[in-house]
């Protein structure tokens, strides 16, 4: 592995200007980071991977339909069995017409999505037109591929609307990138897929699609211990994204399955001595 020492000159990650390598142009070179100074570099990397690994406890989903892309996620962050937060924003706004979902390490997802947002804006300024969803997801996938094996934990979906219409890509920390119509990522994804796949039709209205997305997240939070909190639903249309709803799943349960009061028999017992 070639150590990039240009990072030693400034404290900010280098994004290409001033880089000495002729093979890289200004917009596709990788930010360089300080490497840890330990005696056991591989062991340290392994421990870092193990620390982040259990963290894909979440449910996120996205699907393309007639009116655009519907994106939904829960809001729970868990550390093993402990719930560290019930109010995490897992749908990240990359720019006004593109959304990314977060599954895996929170820090990793937040940083790389913001980094992607920067690259997309630079592309816009350099080319005088918006970047396509395909291009944006490719940028992210290439960045993650170069950090393969170093313990990043990112399972994200890039959803947006560009000149070719709605676009949805799945990108993960292994460097995989898949184009598709329906994805769900996280420990609650099998439960969400069950509801999503059985209720999906391409010709849905925005209301029907948002109800399907909300229901899928709700069912995943019911069955999966690592998902819960608030089910957020976003819609990406030709004008950009719009947040449709954010419902607490504790209340959603009693909305879908109201409790009918049942008179139970009162057990009155004389204490026997």
């Amino acid at each position, binding site marked *: 592995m070639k150590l990039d020492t240009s990072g030693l000159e400034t404290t900010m990650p280098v994004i290409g200007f001033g880089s000495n390598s002729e093979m890289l142009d200004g917009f596709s070179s990788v930010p360089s980071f300080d490497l840890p100074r330990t005696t056991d570099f591989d062991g340290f990397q392994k421990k870092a991977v193990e620390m982040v690994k259990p963290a894909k*406890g979440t449910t996120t989903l996205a699907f393309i339909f007639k009116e655009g892309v519907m994106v939904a996620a*829960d809001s*729970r962050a*868990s550390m*093993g*069995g*402990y*719930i560290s937060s*019930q109010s995490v924003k897992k749908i990240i706004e990359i720019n006004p017409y593109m959304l990314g979902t977060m599954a895996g390490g929170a820090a990793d997802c937040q940083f790389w999505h913001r980094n992607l947002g920067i690259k997309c804006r630079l592309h816009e300024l350099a080319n005088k037109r918006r970047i396509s969803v395909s291009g944006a997801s490719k940028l992210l996938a290439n960045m993650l591929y170069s950090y393969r094996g170093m313990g990043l934990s990112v399972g994200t979906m890039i959803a947006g609307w560009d000149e070719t219409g709605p676009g949805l890509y799945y990108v993960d920390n292994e460097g995989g990138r898949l184009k598709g119509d329906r994805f769900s990522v996280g*420990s609650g994804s099998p439960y969400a897929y069950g509801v999503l796949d059985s209720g999906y039709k391409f010709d849905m209205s925005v209301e029907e699609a948002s109800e399907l997305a909300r229901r899928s997240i709700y069912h995943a*939070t*019911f*069955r*999966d*211990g*690592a*998902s*819960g*909190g608030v089910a957020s639903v976003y819609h990406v249309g030709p004008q950009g994204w719009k947040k449709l709803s954010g419902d607490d*799943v*504790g209340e959603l*349960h*009693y909305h879908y399955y109201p*409790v009918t009061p049942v008179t*139970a028999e*009162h*057990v*009155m*017992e*004389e*204490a*026997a001595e």
Partner: protein
Amino acid sequence: MQIFEYNGSAVVAMVGKNCFAIASDRRLGVQLQTIATDFQRISKIHDRVFIGLSGLATDVQTLYQRLVFRHKLYQLREERDMKPETFASLVSAILYEKRFGPYLCQPVIAGLGDDDKPFICTMDSIGAKELAKDFVVSGTASESLYGACEAMYKPDMEAEELFETISQALLSSVDRDCLSGWGGHVYIVTPTEIKERILKGRMD
């Protein structure tokens, strides 16, 4: 994940004025997946002694059946019900018998003793008794439960206030635990009646 966290559980017992309360969550899971939301963790041994078992679900059920058997034998021989202190010693002995291949559960025992004095105790999986005057907890949410009970508990509460306190402590603690919750089950026992209530909780 650890074996004690395989099924997920939360049990708490509190002492009031001539009464006690014992409460548990209702989830049965297999690691992160929820299988059932109506699992019975608290069982009645007789009208004045209850036992709540947290930990591995299969051992919860087997240990409960064993204890009911031993109590029935006791009833036949002595022609009376066991005192809660005696019952706690019985549970401790049964658990220690399996010292090198233990039942993977942590019992919480609550009962009304002589003169209607409430008695609570908890044990680890090999029978170490821990008596308490105020509250005992066990399960995957035990750390949150300790915090909640410590904050909300007052001595000498009446039955209704005790019910409110133990319910709030249980629900707020399991809301911080991925592996327990999905409702609550509370028993309030006074010398004259046993009230069983199901709590409406967050189902996530």
